[in-house]
């Protein structure tokens, strides 16, 4: 499924839901707690940059706003946002989003705007307590806005659904690393995209069927158990004991970057697939690995605290404290997952991406992994040049591998 088809399909699904009277809440930050939104009977949908939207932000935003928020705001100005009845913005992540929520609220006071503020400090229990309270406030504001109280049963159902989804995609991630021809990266990215657009049971059913097929293919090489072990190691972020088969196809490429959407990047990387469908084996993207490998809420004690622990248990973002930890994990991943090329995506005018990428590149070079830096805008307006860069990078990596 292409990026454009995914957008069309998600709009179709959202329309059906709206027709049935389901309120839809848009979100923009990868670690939005879908389970809490769903516990209020509201459908969360991830808002994407829309490449067909032309700049209409100029009266409210300067040109140095990041390309993502310019695109989002233009969608609102043009009335092109898909069926949402409210948006939740994160607080305390990046300066651009922080200000966008305020601008939006002042420009469109009639819109339902929610703010969920995250701790940027890696402060253990204190951060959990702070965030749990923010989640409680968020939940109360959902109740006020939509008139539907938090339902314990709906929450548990949502946790279960999200967990089934994550568990299945985690398995696919591990399978792709161990036996790249068992599932295409593009396929994984499409599942992630669809679930973020509308977390529905039907999608999880489809995902389960894919997992079965992949399991069968892995079983032929007796790799089901090692795939599960790798899934676990990834979840625990302890990769030192990972052992990979010796006959893996090369090159093995990983993609890293902030708010870059996996499906969009997978499509861009199709140029690689034309050469080698097994090349992209891993990502450390926010809407990819980081959200997929979020630990499951533990259902102990206070539910908001449980959720806070889960969300803060994910591999943190460049907007949060903990660069040394992230770099250590990247180094581990590059080394123990036998990666030989790293694509570093960087959204234009995105402070978090642009600050972190020199450190990511330095780590890769330290462990001898070749890199390419991909400055992108949300609309991928420079597609031909980006594809060219990826193409020549792939050639370099392939050449490096032969040396």
């Amino acid at each position, binding site marked *: 499924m292409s990026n454009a088809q995914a957008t069309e399909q998600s709009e179709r699904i959202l329309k059906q839901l709206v027709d049935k009277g389901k309120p839809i809440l848009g979100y923009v930050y990868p670690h939005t707690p879908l389970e809490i939104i769903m516990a209020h009977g509201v459908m969360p949908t991830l808002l994407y940059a829309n490449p067909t939207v032309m700049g209409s932000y100029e009266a409210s935003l300067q040109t140095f706003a990041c390309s993502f928020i310019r695109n989002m705001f233009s969608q609102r100005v043009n009335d092109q946002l898909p069926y949402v009845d409210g948006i939740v913005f994160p607080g*305390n992540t990046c300066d651009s989003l922080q200000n966008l929520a305020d601008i939006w609220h002042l420009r469109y006071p009639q819109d339902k705007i929610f703010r969920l503020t995250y701790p940027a400090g890696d402060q253990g229990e*204190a951060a959990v307590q702070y965030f749990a309270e923010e989640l409680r406030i968020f939940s109360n504001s959902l109740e006020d806005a939509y008139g539907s109280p938090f339902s314990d049963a709906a929450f548990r159902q949502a946790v279960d659904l999200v967990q089934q989804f994550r568990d299945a995609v985690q398995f696919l991630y591990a399978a792709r690393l161990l036996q790249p021809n068992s599932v295409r990266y593009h396929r994984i990215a499409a599942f992630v995209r669809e679930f973020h657009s509308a977390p529905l049971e039907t999608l999880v059913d489809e995902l389960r069927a894919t997992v079965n097929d992949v399991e069968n293919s892995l079983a032929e090489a007796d790799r089901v158990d090692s795939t599960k072990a790798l899934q676990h190691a990834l979840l625990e972020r302890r990769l030192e004991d990972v052992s990979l088969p010796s006959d893996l196809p090369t090159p093995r490429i990983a993609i890293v970057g902030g708010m870059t959407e996996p499906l969009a990047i997978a499509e861009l990387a199709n140029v690689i697939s034309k050469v080698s469908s097994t090349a992209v084996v891993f990502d450390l993207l926010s809407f990819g690995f980081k959200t997929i490998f979020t630990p499951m809420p533990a259902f102990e004690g206070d539910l908001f605290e449980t959720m806070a622990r889960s969300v803060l248990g994910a591999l943190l973002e460049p907007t949060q404290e903990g660069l040394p930890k992230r770099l250590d994990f990247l180094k581990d991943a590059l080394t123990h997952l036998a990666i030989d090329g790293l694509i570093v995506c960087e959204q234009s005018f995105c402070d978090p991406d642009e600050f972190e990428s020199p450190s990511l590149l330095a780590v890769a070079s330290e462990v001898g992994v070749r890199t390419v830096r991909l400055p992108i805008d949300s609309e991928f307006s420079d597609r031909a040049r980006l594809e060219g860069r990826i193409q020549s990078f792939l050639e370099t990596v392939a050449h490096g591998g032969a040396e």
Partner: protein
Amino acid sequence: MPEKAKEEKAYRVLESHSFLQRAMFRYMLEGHAASEEGKLAWVTSGFPVEIPVAMDVGVSYPEQYGAIVGSEKAGPKLCDYAEELGYSQELCSYARASIGSVKHPEESPLEGLPAPQALLACNNICGTVLRWYDAISQMTGAPVFLLDTPPLEGEQLPHHIAYVRHGLDNLVSFLSKQFDTTLEEDKFREVTDLSTETIGIWTQCLEACKSKPSPLNCADRFLAMAPVVAIRGRDYTLEYYQTLLNEVKDRVANGLGAIRDEKVRLLWDNIPPWFRVFRIMGALAKKGVVFPADTYTHAWTGSIKDEDRMDSIASMYSNVYLNKGLEAKVDKMCDLIKGYDLDGFVMFSVRSCKRYSLGQLVSKELVSERTGVPGVVIEGDMVDSRLQNDAQIETRLDALLEMLL
């Protein structure tokens, strides 16, 4: 300089300026000495500096150093060095200038800031500071301590205070461990008292500008703010502000303005373009334009109260101007325009500072609507002159003045 030539300037130079230079020179020497002793922290401008100061940890301010880089017109060169290391030109130019100066101190004004042994960041001014200090940490090996003060929407709620308060306790532990020091109650009281008193006198200097003519222009305040940002909590800082306040009061009593012929009173919003600010202000002064208030120097206000001083710090530092929403910024601008009886406002849109600048297009409309005075948005940068188009700025300012003069 012959007396006559001095008289002809549109601008009155402050006598207390020499005290300011002495205070800043002392601050600089203290920074070098602390670094040599292995006891220097770099600190963001919104950091509760009273705590490291009370624990005998020396401090240096990279943002202020950025202002020096800007004034010395070394911005493009140092930013370029950061860009060579892979930091995009779109990033905060204070950050880029400091990264560049760490890489090439020999080519930097004052040979760069003294080497830090710790980096203390408080994100109450923006999220960028954490990432900037992370980058410096990668280069210098000094560890980063983040005091997380999530942005406020309205009142600061108890869980927010508790979280920040926890961060402050962590800060004390971090400094104790890093610098083998303790926080003694007496010293803490002394430093916080001095800090509160300094901020109080600084606020009086600012408020004196309600007088007509205004005793200070914003370029005066941009210079005079340096110690309240960098060295509040020191006795010599307090002395400097007392001298400044006396001079300001004197000017008010004698009807002397910062500029000789005040015709138009404007508000300045945002950090100034350090490499051009005196030229812009000087040219405007000749036309009778003074800036009795600005949002930047008014950001250092508040007081550390007597009850639990740590709680008071948690509240004061969470409630700073840049940590609040756009609505609060609009309110503040409207209050300043009304309180200082201003005729219009200039919003400097700083390309590399998103936190301060994104939203100005909307606030411009709202402020004009609510106060009835016109405003203009001009775009440029505080340090990196490559990002600024002077001709465009001049045209826009002229258009505003046409309405007012």
